[in-house]
């Protein structure tokens, strides 16, 4: 099969009418979508996609995040950044192949609200933040921003950010994460600081993210060598955790 996407007019029809139709999103399958439009609202792209399942085995859905990032990014890493920021693609996948995964991951059955559906089936925030909130694009973008081929395990940084949902928010939802060099320097420093005995938790990661933001106000971080950013973050991690 090929990747399908939701046509633009159909996307607007669903989003714009969400206050009237949100209860349908708790239906056990997505057949209602075809009934709603009187035909399939999905169109095919030229890109083939093998039929693959996502892990839905954990009682706490966040615990499947790391595994599912790998499954999605390994299969869809051919997408360009431009294609991977297209709401029609991800809304299409959430409403079609991964409808039940989206329900599972974001507890749609019990939290069937307009906001919850808007954020996780569609793009419900600004352009950048939506990428890490939509159920499927989130998996792809976590992979895109943390996959590092220079490591023995290219998903080492991914594994770290998937330890806690707050790490994803603190690290990947900041503009500095857009430069892979900065993200890699930042994450490497935190991982090494932890290996060096620094207790790393959501508070320290939050503090370090703020510090990186502060540095971005003084330096053009993109022009600094990776080692310099690494050094500043590593030193600051030592300072705030051992003081």
């Amino acid at each position, binding site marked *: 099969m090929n990747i399908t*996407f939701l046509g*633009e007019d159909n996307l607007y029809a669903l989003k714009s009418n969400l206050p009237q139709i949100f209860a349908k999103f708790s239906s056990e399958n997505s057949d209602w979508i075809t009934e709603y439009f009187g035909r399939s609202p999905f169109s095919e792209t030229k890109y083939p996609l093998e039929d693959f399942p996502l892990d839905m085995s954990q009682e706490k859905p966040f615990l499947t995040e790391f595994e599912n990032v790998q499954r999605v990014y390994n299969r869809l890493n051919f997408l360009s950044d431009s294609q991977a920021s297209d709401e029609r693609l991800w809304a299409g996948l959430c409403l079609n192949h991964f409808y039940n995964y989206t329900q599972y991951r974001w507890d749609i059955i019990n939290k069937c609200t307009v906001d919850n559906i808007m954020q996780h089936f569609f793009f419900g925030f*600004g352009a950048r933040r939506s990428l890490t909130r939509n159920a499927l694009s989130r998996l792809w973008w976590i992979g895109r921003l943390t996959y590092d081929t220079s490591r023995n395990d290219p998903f080492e940084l991914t594994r770290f950010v998937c330890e806690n949902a707050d790490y994803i928010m603190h690290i990947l939802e900041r503009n500095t994460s857009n430069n892979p060099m900065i993200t890699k320097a930042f994450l490497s420093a935190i991982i090494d600081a932890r290996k060096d005995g620094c207790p790393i938790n959501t508070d320290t990661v939050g503090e370090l993210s703020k510090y990186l933001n502060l540095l971005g106000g003084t330096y053009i*971080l993109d022009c*600094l060598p990776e080692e310099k950013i690494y050094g500043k973050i590593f030193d600051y991690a030592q300072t705030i955790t051992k003081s």
Partner: protein
Amino acid sequence: MDIRYKLYPYPVLSSYADDYENSCFDAKISPKRDGHGIRFDFFAKLVNEELNELLEKGKACFVYHLECAQTGYRTVVATGNAETTHFVSDKSVRGRLQICPFIIATEDLPAYVNRGFHSDYRGFKFSIEAGCVMAVGSQVNIDIDNEINDLSNTPSVFSIIKNDDKAAQGMVVDMEYRKIVIKLPEEEFYNFKSIRDEIVIKPVLNSLVVIPALTYVLEEVAKRDTGERYEYSSYSWYRAIKKALATKFNCDIESEQLSEKNILELSQKLIDTPITDALRVLSDGYGNISEEDDE
């Protein structure tokens, strides 16, 4: 990255602060479509002797910071030359690309002084680290339409959909999407849908549905201050209308020219004044034409 009018702990050359006298820095940034991407030509203009010397010695460089919030594309173009070019692929960007010009130190400058400093700073030396900003130019935002790389092509700027709100009457227009969304009540929508593909009836539908919606949209745009209208530019419909107004009517949507125009007249002209053909179709008897066609 957005350039903010922030203060630094040392003098920085910019248009918004008076840290320097008789000096200026800015850059002209010209985008040109080049196959499946955009080529940017950068021309930096710097008036300040000491900063020019630092550039010549390689102790400072021009930096153009490019960032696309939607795709996360973020890169810098660093050069010692006043003129340079850079290519950005359509695969990397979508929507708005922000470009910020700077001059930054490329090595530590432990005792930086400049004869262009404002008199308040004369006699002081400043320690500037490599990577620190020394001059800030004007930010340029480029809105990129990369339909070539798109998953599908959707030329119209209008999306006409059903309104599931049973209490709604008449059409509702929503401007907060890539296209102008026109919502019709259920019965009206299905009536519209049943005839929208008939070419002969198109001028009638445009007169009934599109013209009022476009008039509404242009009036909403015209109500806003000219400086705020740019906020719509992330929407494709806005860019399409902006281009059409500029090329066909010599009208800058981000100037007072739009507010001075007769909006109803303008919106009809933008859709090629469909009322003429619409009334002709109706007076000729649309039903009769269809019946004859059927024979």
